[in-house]
């Protein structure tokens, strides 16, 4: 009983609001009706009814019926004809909403081309025949019109209702579903300029007898492309607010015609312009949706190519910096990994796959998982890289990558032994506790180009306070050729980081090499630091 009461009040309120708005729009429409006849340009109540039923559901139909009844009750037409007109208006709204929902899987935001086409055909052309047919027949039966006028009155009625569904209904649907109108790229000041342009150009066009309507097209494209659906509906309403009164007073390109014909031409122009611009806006929002989907896929893929976090290695601090170059959907490129081989030792990898995009991402995946699998049973990093070289030559013969691969074994003296093999990759560096910097490893061949690459293992010891620095060429060449950091520059930056933690070395080095540049790096950058702390008292997070 409580739930019923709670649900009943908003429902009654919606019906009351709909009936009142319908009645107001109808009276306003009749007030502005062309002097010669009782027909108006765009019949707003039809658009209001359709939008209300689409947004609030079929059950608010009594609002349409009450509004239509009130609007037509005191026009002097016999009561049974008023009932007929009311039934026609209500059925029109119900049929339009039903066809759109059931047949067209309609979405009120009009963000898909199919929604606009459905609204234009099912709502604009089909459902409006119901009200025109029932309404005009009611007038004929009541002898309000002569049977010879049936065709022309029917046509005017039908087109007026169509105007309501093509101009007014989209405005309401978009106003409600796009709130707060912040998604389109257009800026507020730009919107003000566009609105002023639309009003002044419309005033110019609709005061000149020569048909200059075409000069409105660029403004229509501007509104649709920059302000999407909200820009479209506001633009059409602004043009209509100028075009209809001027056409009514026999000015502009449609002047010289009979009042009814002028009305139909102005209506036709606004309806066609509305649908055209809405289609244009829908193409843009559909493209945006597709871009979002691509970005989502690329992001998911990229996440699968990099570890979500670095594992905690007992007795070793770790830190990583990764900067991706290029647009979001350019996946692949640089990669890194750090994982446990067995109870004792760990494997660290930093690599760079040629290029970007889907092919590079596939090769990055191949590299990452080949290296992980190979590291399980191969202890020598050069053997691991050789297996990767074979795998690339076999599976992606047109791809290549550079990799630095290291095995980390703890030593009894609280230090670590690093066995490194490098294939075509910048040689890693060791920063000693006293500030000396050494290059470690032997240069080897780029992987994926030669069947027998030159690859060797190199072993070095890390004492407490020493750090191993692995990086990709983006660190030195990210802003090439304008800014190239020579190896000496990297060494000098590292020397000043002696005694600092892994994270401090990472941020200090990337700051020195890349600067605080906000510019887009040309290449990905990976910087991975493994450091043996001075004392094991340093807690590992």
């Amino acid at each position, binding site marked *: 009983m409580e739930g019923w009461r709670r649900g009943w009040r908003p429902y009654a309120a919606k019906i009351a609001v709909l009936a009142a708005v319908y009645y107001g729009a109808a009276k306003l429409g009749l007030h502005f009706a062309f002097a010669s006849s009782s027909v108006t340009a765009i019949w707003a109540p039809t658009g209001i009814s359709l939008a209300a039923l689409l947004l609030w559901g079929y059950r608010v139909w009594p609002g349409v019926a009450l509004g239509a009844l009130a609007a037509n009750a005191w026009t002097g037409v016999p009561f049974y004809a008023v009932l007929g007109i009311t039934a026609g208006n209500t059925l029109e709204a119900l049929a339009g909403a039903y066809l759109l929902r059931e047949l067209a899987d309609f979405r009120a935001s009009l963000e898909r081309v199919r929604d606009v086409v459905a609204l234009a055909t099912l709502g604009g052309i089909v459902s409006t025949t119901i009200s025109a047919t029932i309404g005009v027949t009611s007038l004929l039966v009541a002898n309000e019109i002569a049977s010879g006028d049936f065709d022309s009155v029917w046509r005017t009625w039908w087109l007026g209702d169509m105007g309501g569904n093509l101009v007014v209904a989209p405005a309401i649907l978009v106003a409600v579903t796009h709130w707060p109108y912040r998604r389109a790229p257009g800026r507020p000041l730009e919107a003000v300029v566009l609105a002023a342009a639309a009003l002044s150009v419309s005033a110019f066009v609709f005061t000149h007898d020569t048909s200059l309507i075409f000069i409105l097209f660029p403004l229509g494209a501007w509104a649709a492309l920059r302000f999407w659906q909200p820009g479209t509906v506001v633009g059409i309403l602004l043009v209509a607010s100028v075009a209809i009164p001027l056409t009514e007073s026999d000015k502009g390109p449609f002047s010289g015609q009979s009042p009814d014909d002028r009305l139909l031409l102005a209506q036709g122009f606004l309806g066609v312009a509305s649908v055209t611009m809405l289609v244009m806006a829908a193409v843009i929002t559909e493209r945006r949706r597709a871009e979002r989907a691509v970005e989502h896929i690329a992001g998911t893929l990229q996440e699968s190519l990099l570890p979500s976090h670095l594992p905690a290695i007992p007795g070793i601090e770790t830190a990583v910096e990764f900067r991706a170059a290029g647009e979001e959907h350019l996946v692949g490129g640089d990669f890194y990994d750090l994982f446990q081989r067995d109870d004792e030792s760990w494997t660290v990898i930093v690599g*760079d796959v*040629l*290029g*970007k995009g889907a092919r590079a991402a596939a090769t990055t995946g191949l590299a990452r998982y080949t290296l992980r699998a190979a590291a399980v049973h191969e202890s020598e990093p050069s053997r691991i890289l050789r297996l990767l070289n074979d795998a690339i030559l076999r599976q992606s013969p047109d791809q*290549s990558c*550079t990799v630095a691969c290291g095995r980390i074994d703890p030593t009894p003296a609280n230090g670590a032994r690093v066995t490194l093999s490098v*294939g*075509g*990759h*910048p*040689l890693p560096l060791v920063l000693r506790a006293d500030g000396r910097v050494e290059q470690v490893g032997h*240069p*080897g*061949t*780029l992987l994926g*180009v*030669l069947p027998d*690459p*030159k690859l060797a293992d190199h072993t070095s010891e890390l004492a407490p306070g020493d750090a191993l620095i692995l990086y990709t*060429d983006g660190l030195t*060449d990210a802003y*090439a*050729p304008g800014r*190239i950091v*020579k*190896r000496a520059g990297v060494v000098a930056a590292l020397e000043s980081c002696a005694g600092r933690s892994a994270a401090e070395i990472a941020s200090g080095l990337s700051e020195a090499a890349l600067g605080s540049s906000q510019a887009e790096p*040309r*290449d990905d950058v990976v910087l991975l630091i493994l450091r043996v702390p001075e004392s094991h008292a340093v807690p590992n997070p």
Partner: protein
Amino acid sequence: MSLADLELESIEGLPVAHLSGEIDRSNAAELGERVGAAIGGQGGGLVVDLSELAFIDSTGIRMLFELAAELKRHRQALRVVVPDGAHLGDILETVGLQQAAATDHTVGEAVAALTHRG
């Protein structure tokens, strides 16, 4: 507008490709094809002069390896010219290009090495 410029000439019957500007993934494939088309049927080899090159990325490096492989299929040799002390020399050493192609400091040295051999 291309980032890089390619100039082809023939010195003592040997094709010499001078590459200048920047080579990255936007133009590496096209440059590789144009340089590859210069490989002569008469044997000898090919000199790729990178003295005036401002930048090369991994795609460009890959292109050099492919040129070397292409020449090897024709039983010819690729020699790459990089001035002494250039940053590019470090890059080519890093990627192990010497496994596939020898490097020289000047075009003259490269031509001499190839013609002497031939």
